[in-house]
């Protein structure tokens, strides 16, 4: 019931719904990912048991997060990494900027990291005059376009080839042709230069293994390996919930994540980095900083309704099955994280902003839960976020009144039957043969959302309860 003025979500949604290219690109991509996920999970077998195992590992880890964080931090430090803790985005940015400044670095290369988007690290570094380059192809395209990723795994699914050609031409001041080979070749050439020049590499962290203090990166383009080996300094941005206790737990995740994300049996490049390079090692950074970032996460620990969202391994499977994401894409969510996980995570990480709009952007169909490799009940969380919106007064007063009336009428049978009877009477009076329906539905305000797109069924001549009475007492029924 849209009692309020047109909202930001409405505006973004209508832009997305008018963008035919975006919609067909999103549909094409998510269908492909769903298809390959189905094949790869079937090939593995016992997928539901894998999900149970994954869920149990994540639940155990998050329930004992303090312990495992300490263990990870101690082991990473023992291996020569420098471990920092950042309570929020600002502190994380400051630590990164400080490390880059201490190295007197001018050029930074990055591999794909949603957390780096969350804390806005590129802008912070650019402000200090540092050249930051995304080296994941999709992320680089998005960076050149000054946009945000439209999908957690595939950031540039909303971009057309011609747009990418224009971005590359502007970046390199040279004329290119629109073939994939040419464009990819250009990116390869340019990024190769960037890798060689960079003094600092920044990555995210898919998993952090507590028992050895290792950082694990899953990538497909090999850029992650370049970012972590060519520059002498490596900064890891790690969400505090990224921990897995052991290497055997990692094995479960290494089966769940690529299959759920892209339908791959294994990620193309699986990098496990345990501290800076040793004396006899040729490759790797000599200087490793791991920044463990909270930014709203620890607040969810102990929260019965929402703690489980920390189990997320950022695979994006919930986006690929979401009927809402399918039709509006990622940008309409207006946040770094989109899709069902974005609708849940965004307001939880930023509790000052009302969850309202994003929490409403779901049919509560439960496809996200079904797709989730670690079984996060996102559909239930959306229901709880809507409750929080009501409790915090983010909903329209008229809606509150409407639901109070609803509760009174729908908990009192005789009143419900009476209201139904009056509605039928009004329907006969105003609609008669139905010619005035259009006028009536316009006038009905809140129901316009329905009637703008769909026929509204008329109330039946008699309710079931009335029919039931006739059925039980036919003689009496015929008289009425």
């Amino acid at each position, binding site marked *: 019931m849209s009692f309020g003025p047109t909202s930001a979500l409405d505006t973004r949604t209508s832009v997305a719904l008018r963008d035919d290219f975006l919609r067909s690109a999103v549909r094409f991509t998510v269908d492909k990912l769903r298809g390959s996920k189905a094949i790869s999970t079937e090939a593995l077998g016992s997928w539901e048991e894998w999900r149970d195992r994954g869920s149990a590992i994540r639940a155990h880890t998050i329930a004992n997060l303090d312990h495992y964080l300490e263990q990870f931090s101690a082991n990473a430090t023992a291996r020569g990494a420098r471990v920092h803790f950042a309570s929020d985005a600002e502190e994380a940015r400051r630590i990164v900027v400080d490390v880059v400044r201490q190295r007197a670095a001018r050029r930074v290369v990055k591999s794909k990291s949603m957390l780096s988007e969350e804390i806005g690290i590129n802008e912070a570094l650019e402000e200090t005059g540092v050249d930051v380059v995304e080296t994941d192809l999709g992320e680089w395209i998005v960076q050149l376009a000054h946009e945000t990723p439209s999908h957690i795994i595939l950031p540039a699914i909303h971009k057309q080839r011609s747009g990418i050609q224009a971005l590359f031409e502007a970046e390199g001041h040279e004329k290119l042709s629109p073939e994939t080979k040419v464009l990819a070749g250009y990116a390869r050439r340019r990024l190769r230069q960037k890798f060689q020049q960079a003094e600092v590499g920044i990555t995210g962290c898919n998993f952090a293994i507590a028992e050895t203090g290792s950082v694990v990166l899953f990538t497909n383009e090999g850029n992650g390996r370049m970012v972590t080996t060519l520059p002498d300094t490596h900064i890891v941005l790690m969400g505090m919930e990224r921990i897995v206790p052991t290497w055997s737990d990692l094995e479960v995740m290494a089966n769940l994540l690529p299959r759920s994300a892209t339908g791959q049996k294994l990620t193309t490049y699986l990098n496990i980095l345990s501290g800076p390079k040793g004396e006899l090692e040729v490759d790797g950074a000599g200087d490793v900083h791991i920044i463990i970032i909270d930014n709203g996460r620890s607040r969810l620990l102990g929260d019965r309704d929402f703690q489980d969202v920390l189990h997320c391994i950022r695979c994006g499977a919930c986006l690929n099955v979401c009927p809402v994401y399918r039709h509006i894409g990622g940008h309409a969510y207006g946040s770094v994280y989109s899709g069902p996980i974005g609708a849940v995570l965004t307001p939880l990480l930023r509790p000052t902003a009302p969850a309202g709009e994003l929490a409403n952007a779901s049919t509560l169909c439960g496809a996200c839960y079904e797709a989730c490799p670690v079984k996060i009940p996102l559909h239930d969380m959306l229901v709880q976020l809507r409750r929080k919106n009501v409790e915090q007064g983010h909903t329209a007063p008229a809606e509150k009144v409407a639901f109070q009336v609803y509760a009174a009428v729908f908990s009192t*049978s005789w009143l419900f039957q009476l209201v139904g009877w009056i509605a039928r009477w009004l329907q006969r009076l105003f609609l008669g043969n139905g010619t005035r329906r259009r006028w009536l539905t316009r006038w009905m305000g809140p129901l*316009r959302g329905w009637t703008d797109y*769909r*026929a509204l069924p008329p109330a*039946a001549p008699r309710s079931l309860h009335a029919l039931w009475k006739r059925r039980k007492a036919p003689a009496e029924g015929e008289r009425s």
Partner: protein
Amino acid sequence: MKVSFFSTCLGDQLYPEVAMSAVRVLERLGCEVDLPAAQVCCGQPALNSGYQDEARTVARRLIETFADAEHVVAPSGSCSGMIRHYFPQLFKHDAGLLREAESFASRVFELSQFLVRVLGIHQLDGSFPHKVTYHPSCHGARLLGIREEPLILLRAIRDLELVPLPKADDCCGFGGTFAIKLASISAAIVDEKVAHISETNAHYVVGTDLGCLMNITGRMQVKGLPVQGVHMAELLDRAMSKGAPA
């Protein structure tokens, strides 16, 4: 077997013929059906909009109404899902009410689920000489795990040609108040569902939920499509009335 029928608010006011069909089907299969008069609604509209106090008011009345019922059957996977999945969550802070909610939840069944899992129906005496496609509603499938039951029933009917629906598991875009609050997204979703239904060339699209059917048929009407939406209860009722011995 004694069955207490929960018509659901939509079934009572907008689709009483569907509800009556469900009752007739249950009776034909040997059930003794009653319709407790105090029932109204499961409270889902309020829960899904965030008004949990209001949802609890409505839910409590429903629990009281069916306190003595052995089996409660509803022509809706969504309302049954609300009761089975969300009633225990709604009352988790009160041990006494939680017990009642859990007891109620364990006694509630969606119609096709009840017919197949409780009555053990795998064969039916009925005929429905039409091309039919089936849309599995999300809450029935995902909250209650109802996947095979409706198909078992449809396959049991003579002369019924069941054609698979492409992307059948995708939501129809209804989502209760979502269809009104974010109407344009809901319309985009239902458009895709309707397009898939058209592709099948079926005469009927059958479902187990009135809300989803209201959404799908409402959109098909506006688009002037010839496909008829039909609830599982109605389809079974029509098929079985034809199948009755002459």
